[in-house]
C-alpha cells in the first residue's frame, strides 16, 4: 500500500506493507538516525516526532502515520548540531547508539516545557536508555543546553 508522510518538512510517498512499522519504513529510506535498539518500545533509540510529539517509531504502524508530519534528526540538523556541542563538552557521548533518539527527545523537551525542574527533565528523558554514560554527564549537558536556549 501507499502512504504519504510529511517527512522532515517534505511530503513524500512511501510504498509499504500493511504490517510494516514506521521504524523500518524510515530506515529503508536512509533515515539512519532512527535506530532499532529493542524492537519492543522500551529503549527510546527509535524516537521520532509525529506531529511534533516524541513517539517510538518501532511501535507505530507506518499505515497509521499516513498523512502525519514526521520529524527525525535528519530534519533538525542545526538544532542537533548545537545539542551535540554540549554533549561533547561533557563527554556525554560514548557509543552514540542512543544519542540521536535522545537528541530528538531533548529537542521536544525544549519546545514542550518552560523552565523544567530537574525532576521534570529526568521524567521527560527517562525512556531514552543508555548503557554507557551513567547518565550524569548527559543530564548536565541537557541542563546546559536548556540554559543556553533561554
Amino acid at each position, binding site marked *: 500500500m501507499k502512504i504519504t508522510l510529511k517527512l522532515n518538512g517534505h511530503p513524500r510517498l512511501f510504498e509499504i506493507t500493511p504490517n510494516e512499522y514506521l521504524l523500518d519504513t524510515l530506515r529503508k529510506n536512509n533515515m539512519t538516525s532512527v535506530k532499532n535498539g529493542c*524492537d*519492543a518500545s522500551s529503549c527510546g533509540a527509535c524516537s521520532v516526532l509525529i506531529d511534533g510529539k516524541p513517539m517510538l517509531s518501532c511501535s507505530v504502524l507506518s499505515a497509521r502515520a499516513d498523512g502525519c508530519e514526521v520529524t527525525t*534528526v535528519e530534519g533538525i540538523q542545526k538544532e542537533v548540531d548545537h545539542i551535540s556541542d554540549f554533549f561533547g563538552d561533557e563527554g556525554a*557521548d560514548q*557509543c552514540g*547508539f542512543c544519542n540521536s533518539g535522545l537528541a530528538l527527545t531533548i529537542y521536544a523537551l525544549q519546545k514542550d516545557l518552560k523552565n523544567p525542574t530537574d525532576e521534570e527533565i*529526568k521524567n521527560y528523558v527517562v525512556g531514552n*536508555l543508555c548503557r554507557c554514560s551513567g547518565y550524569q554527564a548527559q543530564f548536565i549537558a541537557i541542563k546546559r543546553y536548556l540554559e543556553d536556549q533561554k
Partner: protein
Amino acid sequence: MKIVKTKIPSIDGKGIMMGRPAYTDDLSDPNSLIVKLLRSPYAFAKIVSIDTSKAENLEGVELVLTYKDVPKKSFTRAGQGYPEPSPHDKFVFDEYARYVGDEVACVAAVSEVIAEKALSLIEVKYEQLEAVLDFETAIDSPIIVHPEDGILEMFPIGFEPKRNIAAVYGMEVGKVEKTLKECEVIIKESFYTQAQAHAMMEPHTVNARLDIHNRLVLYSSTQTPFHVRRIVSQTLDVPLSRIRVIKPRVGGGFGGKQALHGEMFVSLVTLRTGKPSKIVYSRKEVFESTFTRHPMRVDMTLGAMKDGTLKAIDCHVLSDTGAYGEHALTVFMVTGAKVLPLYNKVDAVRFNGEVVYTNHVSAGAFRGYGAIQGNFALESAIDILCTKLDMDPIEFRQKNMIVEGETSPIFEIMGEGTAGTAMIMESCKLDYCVKRGIELIDWKKKYPRVDLKNHKIKAVGMAIAMQGSGIPYIDMGAATIKLNDDGFYNLMVGATDIGQGSDTILAQIAAEALMTTVDKVIVYSSDSDLTPFDTGAYASSTTYVSGNAVLKAATQMKEMIIIEAAKVLKVEPKDVDYDGVVLKAKDQQITLSDLSNRLTYNEDQKQLTTTGSYVGHKSPPPFMAGLIEIDIDKETGEFDIIDYVSVVDCGTPINLKLAQGQVEGGIVQGLGMAAFEEVRYGKKGNMLSNSFLYYKIPTTKQIHKLTTEFAESYETSGPFGAKSVGEIGIDTPPAALANAVYNALGVRITSLPITSEKIYNAMQEKKQKESNS
C-alpha cells in the same frame, strides 16, 4: 602535555548524534538477504529429525542450513587470541541443543517476513533431555551437557566434559591451612553472584558480501575484528587471505561483542549463495542467545590477628559457564588474580575451583571479567572480619592493602589461562584514593549510619578495587602513521573503538607526540585489510597497549620528519629544532606543510609512513576506592542511592571527560548488578528476563549523584603515564552497597542483587533470631 590530560570532545560524537550512517546495519547492502535463526525451545534436547523442505520451497527463500549442511568442526566463539584458553566445544550447527535459544537452523530469504515464515515451516522433532540447571550439582551429574566427540581444549585447562567440567585451576602461596590455625580471628562466608546481561544498546549485527575480487567482506559489530577473521577462516575453511573484516562504529560492547555470534551464519549464506546477507539480532536474541556474566559461588575464608593484621585468604570459586565454555577458565582466574593482590601482605593465600557446564545460556566476557565477582566476595568478607575484630574498615584496609613499590606473588603465578608476570606496583595511589574518598563522602559524619528520623537511615559503605591493563606478552597492538601533503597525518590502528572513545584518545596520544592538534590526525580503525593488527578491545588493553603502539609510531614519524628536514636544510638531524609546525636550523627554516608538499610533489619524493607495535611486559593495575551513600527504609529495606564517590588511579587520564565517562558508566552498570539486574530463568531453563521490560537496567531516574575524581598518578611504562580505565569502575558497587546495607541495618546480604526484598527478609530473620535468644 598540551593535548593529553585535557577534555577535548570525542572526535566522532557530533556526526553520530546527527544521525550519519555509521553502524553496521547502516552500512549493509540494501539487497541483503535477511538471515534468521531457528532456536531451540528446550534447555537440552537432541534433534531426532529435521525437515526443511517446506521452508526451502517457500518463494523468496534462498537457503536453509542445519547441522546436515555444515561440516562438524568444533570451535569457540570466545573471540580470543590463538590458541584460545577456551575449549573448542561449539559447532556452527549441531544435533544437540544445549540451552533455550541455541541455534538449530538458519534461513536466508529476500525479506524479514518471508524469513520468519520460513522458520515456522521447518519441522523439527526433538528428543527432550533432562537438563542441568543447578550449577552447584553439575559436577559428576548423570546428565552430561557435552557427551559428544570432537570437542577439545587447546592446551591443558582441566577440561573434563564427561564430568561437566570446562576448566579447573588451583594455586597456593604459603600454607593456608596452617596459617589459618595460627589466626586469632577467622571468618568464613559463601557469596553468590548472578548472571548479568550486557544490554549494550546496539544489538549484535553482521553483514556479508563478496567484493569484486570474490573475497568475503564482513561488516561486524565486533570488539575483535582480527580474531573474527581468523576464527571464521579456521571454522569455515576459507583462506585467511580471502576474508576482510571491517568494524564500523559499534554501539557498545562491554565484552559482549568480543564473541562471535552472527558472523558464521552470514558468512555461510553469502559464500553459498554469492549474495549479500545480513543478520540483526532481536533484543530477545541478544538476551537469550548471546552471553551473560558468569554466575558464581565464591567461598571466602579470612584469618587475622586481633591487632587487625590479615594473615590468610582462602578462596574457592564455583563458576557457571552455561552451555559452552567461552572464557570459562580466564574469567574464573581473574576472580582471584585481579582481586586477591589487593591484600598482598598475607602469609598465605589459596585460590582454587571449578568452572562447570549447565544448560543455561553461555557466559562470556563482561566488563570486570571475574574481578567484580571476586571483589564482591572479598570486600564484603573484609567488612565481616572488621565487625568481628571491632575495627574500623577503613583503618583495616589502610593497614593491609597494597601500596606503591610493593608486589604480590600472585602476579607471577596467575595470568589469564597461563602463568602470570611478576611486577612491582610502580604506580599505586590506592592510599590517596581511600583518603580522598572518605573526605568526599564525608565518611566520618555518616559512618556507620545516621538516623534520619523519618523511618529512614543514611549509611555509607565502601570497597577498594584493582584491574589490569592488557594481558602481558599476549595482547599486541599496532599503529601506522602516514604523513600527507599539507602536513596532516593518517593514523591507522587495529584498536577497536566500541564507543569508549579509543579513536579519540589514540588521536590525542599521536597529536601530543607529533606536537600537533587532534584535527590534524585522521583516525581510521579496525579494518583487517587496511589497518595493522590489534588483538581488540578487551582486557582493558586499548589505552595501555594500543596507546603505546601509537606513541611508538608517532615518535618514529617525528624522527623521520626531522631527518627529511635536515636534508633540505643541509644540516645534521640533531641540529634541527622542531615545534610540530616549523623545522629550524641556524638561520634557515621550513614548515612541516612545505616539507610535506615538497616530499609529495617536488624533490626526493617519497611517502613517509611508519608502524609501531607494542606488546606489554606487564599489566599495571588501575586502582580505585568506591564509596556509596544510601538512604534506606528501616522497615521495608527500600533504598535510594544518594551518591557514589569514585577516586581512581588510572595513571594519566588521557582525556579527562572520556575517562570520567568510563568510570561513571562502569559504576552505574555495577550498581545495576549490585541492586537489581538479574538474568532469571523459569523451571525449564527458559529465560524469563528476555526484554527490557523484564530485565531492568538503570535509567536516569535512579542516578542522583556521581562524584568522580582522579588521583595524580604516573605509570612510567604507559603512554604519557596512562593505565587502563575501561573496567575498573564496575568492580566496587556490589561490595560497597552490601557493606552500606550492613552498616545501616546490621543485616549482611551475601547474594546479588541486593534487593529490598532480600533486605526485608534478612531483617525478619534477624528479628526472629533476636527474639529467640
